[in-house]
């Protein structure tokens, strides 16, 4: 039989694959969307922090010169230009961490507590899709939102500073040359995804796992093993390696992300971009492997656990 007799009868493999991926992507997309509807702090928290920061910046920008602090001094030709830009970037990193911890500790717990899991499970969405959609919030959505807010705030700051300088008849060239805006943005994106997403991923995945298991007090249950192992280590070996390990993971202090040397803040170009070092680190791959195991267990739990 001629296998090529009727090319129209069956869709091409590529088409079938494309259709299959659309079919798989739709439930995933809407599962992510429902997380954004339910946990509105995912966007409200970064927006709120950004708004408060911007408000503070505007006050300094329009204050009379003698009342301004260093950061309000727009005519100084030194690194103080970048101070506020670094600060908002740093605040967004902190916001990312706080939002992620709170989100992850409720993600698989809240739906069991309010029994809405019975509604979600009445839909043709697999437990794997659900857990992956939930994991994508700390691992993709929150860093992106934080990044977008930081960029927006920095842009507004730049525009306001320029406007103030121009209004006073001063040159804006120093401001625009000292701040490499695009580079600063990309650097912040890189930093958010390496130091504040991939590096602490095991911590967030652990929280997701415990939120799918605990009947109450998720954060307490999540912290208990850390305290227990840390305490045991302290008694037996008189050291604090485990607690330090978890702590540095959470705050995004990878040894391969050098934050200790001066001038390594996200606005300072190329100082701590060491993707080679980061990607070749044993800790990174160890952490990712542990994250995958935690997520796999979370999928299993979503399958078996009942409403609380």
């Amino acid at each position, binding site marked *: 039989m001629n296998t090529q007799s009727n090319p129209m009868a069956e869709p091409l493999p590529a088409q079938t694959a494309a259709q299959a991926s659309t*079919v798989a992507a*739709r*439930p995933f*997309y*809407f*599962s992510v*969307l*429902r997380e954004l*509807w*339910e946990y509105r702090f995912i966007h409200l928290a970064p927006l709120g922090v950004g708004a408060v920061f911007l408000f503070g910046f505007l006050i300094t920008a329009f204050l009379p010169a003698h009342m301004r602090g260093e950061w309000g001094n727009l005519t100084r030709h030194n690194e103080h230009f970048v101070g506020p830009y670094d600060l908002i970037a740093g605040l967004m990193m902190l916001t990312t961490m706080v939002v992620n911890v709170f989100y992850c500790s409720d993600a698989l717990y809240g*739906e069991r507590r*309010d*029994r*809405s*899991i*019975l*509604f979600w*499970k*009445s*839909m*043709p*969405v*697999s*437990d794997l*899709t659900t857990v992956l959609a939930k994991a994508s919030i700390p691992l993709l959505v929150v860093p992106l939102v934080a990044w977008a807010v930081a960029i927006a705030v920095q842009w507004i700051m730049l525009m306001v500073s320029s406007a103030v300088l121009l209004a006073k008849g001063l040159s804006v060239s120093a401001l625009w040359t000292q701040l490499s805006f695009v580079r600063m943005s990309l650097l912040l994106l890189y930093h958010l995804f390496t130091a504040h997403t991939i590096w602490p991923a095991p911590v967030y995945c652990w929280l997701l796992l415990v939120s799918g298991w605990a009947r109450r007090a998720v954060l307490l249950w999540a912290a208990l093993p850390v305290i227990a192992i840390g305490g045991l280590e302290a008694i037996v070996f008189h050291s604090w390696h485990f607690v330090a390990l978890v702590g540095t993971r959470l705050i995004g202090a990878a040894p391969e992300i050098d934050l200790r040397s001066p001038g390594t803040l996200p606005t300072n170009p190329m100082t701590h971009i060491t993707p080679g070092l980061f990607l070749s680190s044993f800790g990174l791959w160890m952490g990712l492997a542990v994250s995958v195991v935690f997520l796999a267990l979370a999928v299993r739990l979503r*399958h*078996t656990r*009942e409403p609380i």
Partner: protein
Amino acid sequence: MPCIEARGLRKTFGTTVALAGIDLRVEDGRIVGLVGPNGAGKTTALNAILGLIPYEGELRVLGRDPWTERDRLMCDVCFIADVAVLPRWIRVGQALDYVAGVHPRFDRAKAESFLARTNIAPRSKVRELSKGMVTQLHLALVMAIDAKLLVLDEPTLGLDLLYRKQFYDSLLNDYFDRNRTIVVTTNQVEEIQNVITDLMFIERGRIVLSSSMEELESRFVELVAKPEQTDAARALRPIHERQSLGRSILTFDTQSGHADRQQLAGLGELRTPSIADLFVAILASKPADQPGDQPDNHPSQLQGVSR
């Protein structure tokens, strides 16, 4: 292929036996009422059918194993579990968006036309709706899904009379056709009396009666005995007797071979028992101290009725 087929379906929670190895078969196009006292195993049976809990024994729903294939099964199965489980934070519009997004058989226009007949505003959140409205919303979502099997677990619990009536009216008028199957559990047996085509009584994890409504009506008969004939009626071994307004009302199973309609007609007035009366009669006819943990050690005289 039957819609639901179970053989030796068993579920235990610790030492409590929720389902003691039941056999059940639900054909396509039936409306089955699953009736039983609280804790009889109704919800457990439904949860197993919906792939929400693991179980022992064999179970096939639309040819699939619900526990391992829940997500695929849910393309063809809808359920309203227990009381309202719609998330309280969701807006009506978001609920429509979500179901339209994930469910390949959802007809959004249909759901919107159902909702247009209610007082539910598309902008409102579930937490702002009354219990009756939440159920209406859930029903609108479910009825707009072109599913083969709809499972309803106490769907009208806590609703007022008006909503309860509307619920079953819309279900029958707007949703049910001969290609769909509905399984419904409820304690309000009287409200499903005229809705269901088949009835199952479940008690202590066992199915004690499974019959179509026509069969039930021809098989069981209630006799309001003339006072002077009461003893004669009792001799025909009724499965249950109760007193009402000074007269004895006896329930007979005409398949037991002890009594037939002609005999009984001479002893008083005959009528069809209501589901509620039949339920009481059948449960009372079984020994009260029957252990609930061993399957098939007390084969009931009422078991094994096929449709």
